[in-house]
């Protein structure tokens, strides 16, 4: 029917199709808000009840890595927005470029996340039987990646935290339950987003997107921005609980 052949049978006009797709994605994002809302509620209640354990847990995360990842994701949101703009203005080469950049930044994020997760495994900070918040201060030799000054500080903090909350090990597990639950879910969303971006890249290389037909870019863009915004919440909630000391 239409010149681009992009109109699906159930719609009358491209405009109707675009409105429908956009509304669909917004409603989907509403469901995502409710989805993350459940675990954030569990986080909030436990953080309120076991503040010292949550503060201690938060202090074991690397502010540098987390901050770097925040910048990476913000940059990827920018490149995604540029990809949408390029599509709307029919700049076909730029679409491919910006989509590639977005994917690249997504993978940088994964890389950093991998480093962080691996560290937590080495330090016995994964909830379960082997969880031991005291592992590093008791076995400094096994945690050689923490330098001496940091280790001394961590020791001090842990001692203070145990004073305040004798059941620190159990309650710190709740923090790590929240940490792995929330960042894990977020990472899962990033993986899905990266898959969608690869599909867009394939289509854009084939020259499919232009000013008239750019729904998929637009909609995946919405999703990608949403995943970024989730991270904007997770970063302070998980990394910045008690940094003011």
């Amino acid at each position, binding site marked *: 029917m239409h010149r681009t052949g992009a109109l699906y049978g159930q719609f009358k006009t491209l405009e109707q199709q675009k409105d429908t797709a956009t509304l669909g994605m917004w409603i989907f994002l509403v469901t995502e808000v409710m989805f993350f809302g459940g675990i954030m509620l569990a986080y909030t209640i436990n953080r309120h*009840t076991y503040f*010292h354990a949550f503060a201690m847990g938060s202090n074991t995360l690397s502010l540098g890595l987390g901050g770097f990842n925040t910048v990476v994701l913000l940059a990827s949101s920018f490149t995604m927005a540029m990809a949408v703009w390029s599509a709307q203005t029919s700049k076909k080469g730029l679409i491919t470029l910006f989509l590639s950049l977005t994917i690249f930044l997504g993978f940088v994020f994964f890389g950093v996340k991998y480093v962080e997760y691996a560290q937590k495994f080495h330090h016995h900070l994964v909830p379960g039987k082997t969880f031991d918040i005291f592992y590093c201060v008791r076995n400094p030799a096994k945690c050689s990646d923490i330098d001496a000054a940091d280790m001394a500080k961590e020791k001090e903090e842990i001692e203070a935290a145990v*004073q305040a*909350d*004798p*059941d620190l090990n*159990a309650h710190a597990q709740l923090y790590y339950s929240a940490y792995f639950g929330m960042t894990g879910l977020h990472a899962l969303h990033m993986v899905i987003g990266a898959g969608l971006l690869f599909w867009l890249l394939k289509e854009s290389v084939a020259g499919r997107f232009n000013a008239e037909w750019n729904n998929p870019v637009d909609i995946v863009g919405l999703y990608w921005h949403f995943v970024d915004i989730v991270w904007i919440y997770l970063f302070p909630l998980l990394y910045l609980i008690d940094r003011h000391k």
Partner: protein
Amino acid sequence: MQSPLPTFPEQASNFAGNVDALFSFILMTTLFFAVLVTLLIIFAAFKFRRRSEKEVGDDVHGNNVLEVGWTLIPTIIAIGIFAWGAAIYVNYRIAPTDTLDIYVVGKQWMWKLQQPNGRKEINELHIPVGRNVKLILGSEDVIHDFYVPAFRVKMDVVPGRYNTMWFRPVKTGKYHFFCSQYCGTNHAVMGGWVTVMEPAEYAAWLSGESGDVNPVSAGERLFTQFACVTCHLSNGTGRAPSLNGVFGANVLLADGSTVVADEAYIRESILQPNAKIVAGYQPVMPTFQGLVTEEQIGNLTAYIKSLQSQPVPAKGAGIAPSPAGKK
């Protein structure tokens, strides 16, 4: 005694009459509306039955006066029922102060109950008629629920916290109690009997050979055994506040707020000592989570309650002064 089609169980507690009265009131009200609407439907179905194949009904859109009417009238009735129900519930949730306290521990699939003098029972509860009884409920594993149909009361028994329920038996006799929250394989047999006795009979039963230590003295022994006594000196000079007179009083906390020292507070203070720090004290108490059993917590609580009548030291009790201007 039993009719072939029994309905309400006996009314054997102070709540039973009121609960049944509200039940009957709702029954009458809803029955009135249900019968009214049913009759209207049957009437309309006959009166306006189709008389010819191609007949159509009237062309009516609606009637705003009727809509407002049948919105407002049910709302008013509903609010009335709500208020009556809420009054009973608030009365049920806030126990009077002169209660006979019985510790109840639920575990898969039995009930352990302990009288104030220490007499223990399994799946049996003996109580005097006419006396306010408070059950302090704890669980060792999953969620249970203590339910006595003849008293019309129940309460969930949740691991990790205390719930309380109270009632006043008004009739002697033997009544079923059940576990009313699904708790696994033998949920259905996790029940027993409540025996309501004349006070004299109860006293005799209570002093009968039991061999059990009463919870206050058991608690006192634990108080020494766990070395609580080394810090909680009764004269208020220890590293921790004196516990004399604490139970039921307002405790002033480090953050300036106050909290009533009830069973839940004492339990929390034993298991998570640093959740609420008494003003003027350091958070130095270790947790006893995992070191004390539910039963021992019950005993310790009973002992701390028994200190209620002990002289309160001028300093070091942690009790909040009564607000200025009052009393």
